[in-house]
């Protein structure tokens, strides 16, 4: 099922079959990924809760690319183990190269999770991934509070008053990741 993009006119085309997915479904994609990557942006600094979610995912062994100025939060929390500072443009540019050595030298990723990234910047980067990371196929999912037609899977749009519901979804997502 699709949904209205958070930016109403963000209608990229027929292949943008982004679907609204349950946290469980997304977690299962992440769980079965060969090399997943969590990409976080500045919006995780809105609230400690989000930072904690990211750290929890990181603790499950999923490396974190800290884009925007999100690294600031990790530093403050004292969690920087598998956190790599990189600009989102730079990161996406690397992702489209199947030969890329990865943030840790272990090669590129097959599933990337976008989290806390400004909607339209994220959308453009997801578009790059969807259009150019096809051989091998890379799947990008968004766990932001927006529907992202350019992501393979994302949540629906949440209103400010539904923030709690969104947090519930995130919790479920994290719980269900098995690695």
């Amino acid at each position, binding site marked *: 099922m699709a949904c209205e993009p*958070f930016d109403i006119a963000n209608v*990229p085309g027929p292949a943008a079959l982004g679907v609204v997915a349950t946290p469980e479904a997304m977690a299962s994609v992440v769980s079965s990924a060969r090399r997943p990557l969590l990409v976080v942006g500045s919006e995780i600094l809105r609230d400690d809760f989000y930072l904690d979610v990211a750290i929890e995912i990181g603790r499950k062994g999923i490396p974190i690319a800290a884009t*925007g100025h999100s690294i*600031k939060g990790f530093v403050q929390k004292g969690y920087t183990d598998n956190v790599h500072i990189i600009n989102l443009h*730079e990161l*996406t*540019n690397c992702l489209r190269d199947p030969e890329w050595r990865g943030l840790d030298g272990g090669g590129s990723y097959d599933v990337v999770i976008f989290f806390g990234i400004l909607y339209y910047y994220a959308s453009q980067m997801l578009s790059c991934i969807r259009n150019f990371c096809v051989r091998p196929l890379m799947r990008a999912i968004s766990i932001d509070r927006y529907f992202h037609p350019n992501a393979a899977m994302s949540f629906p749009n949440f209103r*400010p008053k539904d923030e709690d519901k969104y947090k519930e979804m995130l919790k479920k997502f994290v719980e269900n990741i098995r690695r």
Partner: protein
Amino acid sequence: MAKGILDVAGLENVRIFIGEVAEEEEEWEPMGPHPKPGITTLRNWDFKLLQRYKPFYAPFCDMCCLCTYGKCDLSGNKKGACGIRMDAQQGRIVLLACLIGCTAHAGHARHLLHDLIRKFGRDAPIDFGPEIAVEAPLTRLITGIRPKTIGDMEEVLDYIEEQIVQLSDALHTGQEGSFLDFESKALHMGMLDSLAKEVADIIQIAAYKLPSSHPGGGPDVPLVEVGLGTVDTSKPVILVIGHNVPPAADIADYLMEHGLEDAVELAGICCTAHDTTRYYPKAKIVCALGRQLRAIRLGIADVIVVDEQCIRADIVELAQKTFTPVIATNDKALHGLEDRTYDEPDKVVKDLVEGKVPGVLILDPERVGEVAVKTAMQIAPKRRAMKIIMDDEEFQRWVRLCYQCGNCTLACPNGLRIGSAMAKAATGDTKPLAELFDLCVGCGRCEQVCKRHIPIVDVITKAAYPYVRQERGKARVGRGPVWDTEIRDVGAPIVLGTIPGVIAIIGCGNYPNGTRDAYLITKEFADRNYIVVLTGCMAIDAALWKDEEGRGVYETHHGRFDAGGVINIGSCVSNAHIHGACIKIASIYARRNLRGNYEEIADYILNRVGACGVAWGAMSQKAASIATGFNRLGVPAVVGPHGTKYRRAYLGRPDIEDDWKIIDARDGTEYRFEPAPQHLLVACETVEEALPMIAKLCFRPSDTDRGRSIKLTHYIDLHEKYLGCLPPDWHLFVRTATDLPIARREELLKRLEDEHGWKIDWERKRILEGPMRPYDPSFDPTNLPRLIRKKKE
């Protein structure tokens, strides 16, 4: 000898019509290899850039709809019916954006030149005063022409127009198939754009005697008032909007000739505002583009005079709502209005004042002043009797009507959460709504989807009204060209790196985080002794914030092109003087030949001039062509997050060693070198991220150790300040211990040893092993093998 007919004695029956008469061609400089380059002339240079800074594409749309074979679905890099692939299609769209941007500048320049020649003659001299000998660096560099009068610019425009048409041709279905060649063409278009801007600004400076290096110019330009709160609405107000100054200049002339300077307010939005203040410093700068809708809705204008570019397309409809007549003055933007250019001015005024017509066309700028001033003066009393601003009751009615459906948020380009702010306002707390004022880019998309027909923009403005009324700042008038004498002083420190960089803050205001960013970037770098130059909307927005003592950046910083300066260069076309300054460093300081020598100079700038453009709110097609023009000349640029919608970035990959090879021109030795600069075009998500990025993009291979150490200091410091930690790649820029920030040398050496396995001689505090290349103060970096002076045996 002027153009005309020459009767030659002894040849009675022959009349010679003389077109261009060149004075005895003074060989002012030998012609370089590439005068008036065509599409392929600089392709090798482009390919060098594109090989290091590979085009990165983020499609904004998967489809192409440019011909009737379409729409074609190009997703997954599929081909369209014409055989084009997604990557080439993105390059094509970038070229299209640059085309529209470049023609906006070139079209404007040509139009202006016609008007100025008519008013001042072809022979109006280009004389920028004692401190400026290189009057037109881009013109000299690209065309090999040294213009002496404004008429000399005709040939330059001929060249530009011919090239534009050649490039636009390539957009046709079934032309270019390679994204690299589309990019090379976009870079060519960007270069033409820079040239067109130079033409436009030079001729207006020359003709109108705008600030240059004559007395009162340069660093000595006056301050003018900026802000929605500066307009004195007790007087009749004329609001000029756009980019083409002649109509506004005519209004100023009329005011001055009739002693009305204190009786009528002349205020402007966008670049026409800049240029008007350059001519008439009593004029006020109301705001940049992002506030245009709100300025109009506030009804402050008694008459609106529009020329071209960045005018709301619904200007007539909007102005009607506040009973403001519109005078359109430019054939690019006619708005369906009737041409009244040669009508009796008083008849036109009467029709406007009585509201018989919503607006008129007056296409001869010299006929605008009278009509605009008379209209404003006659209509002002009538308009003062009308209620335009929403009252408190109405405000309360609207905010209560909102049922938080969220439609406006989905329509808002910045996803602003309007509904919840409305809800708060309904309970009496208007602060969240008021805070939206500076986050909003004033586009009006929200209002159109509100099922309750809430005039959202007005409601926000009302909530912010106390703030709006106080929005008053000061900006230095746009000063135009940087002086040759200033270049002489700063050339060395810039190239050596001891002035850590020139930060060019330019372009539009499509910000996610308000005008505060413009201020912050300016202040942060000026305080660190970078040279900060601003133009266009950014130069306006940066003036709106103040320090704790209530002083704006133009007040706290000097206006010299020197360390710590904050300089309003001028309007969008004045951007050319930033290129000009970089070029002059190569020519005046480093004595490189300029004429027809683009490739070498761009190579010089890329390797040695630590300049970085910041188009934080880049919105328009012009911003696309401007950035691309900077890029071809070797100047990188950082854009804000909306900039990703341009679809293309130029990103370097420090992890790919082969991309970072550079030649020492002394003997042809090739070195692997640090990513300096790392990108040509990159977007940052937040201003916090952008600040260290901008600092990083000021590194150049030519930096001396002292310069490098200063640059590294600021890079590290900004990263720590805004991102909370050391940058992950600081070590890449270390060639020798003396490259390290003095204050932290020890600590950083330790880190190099511990974290990167470098070998340190702790006794002498020297690095023994580690850096990717040695530091050699006489290193002469180039990307052009032809510049190698003597091949190594």
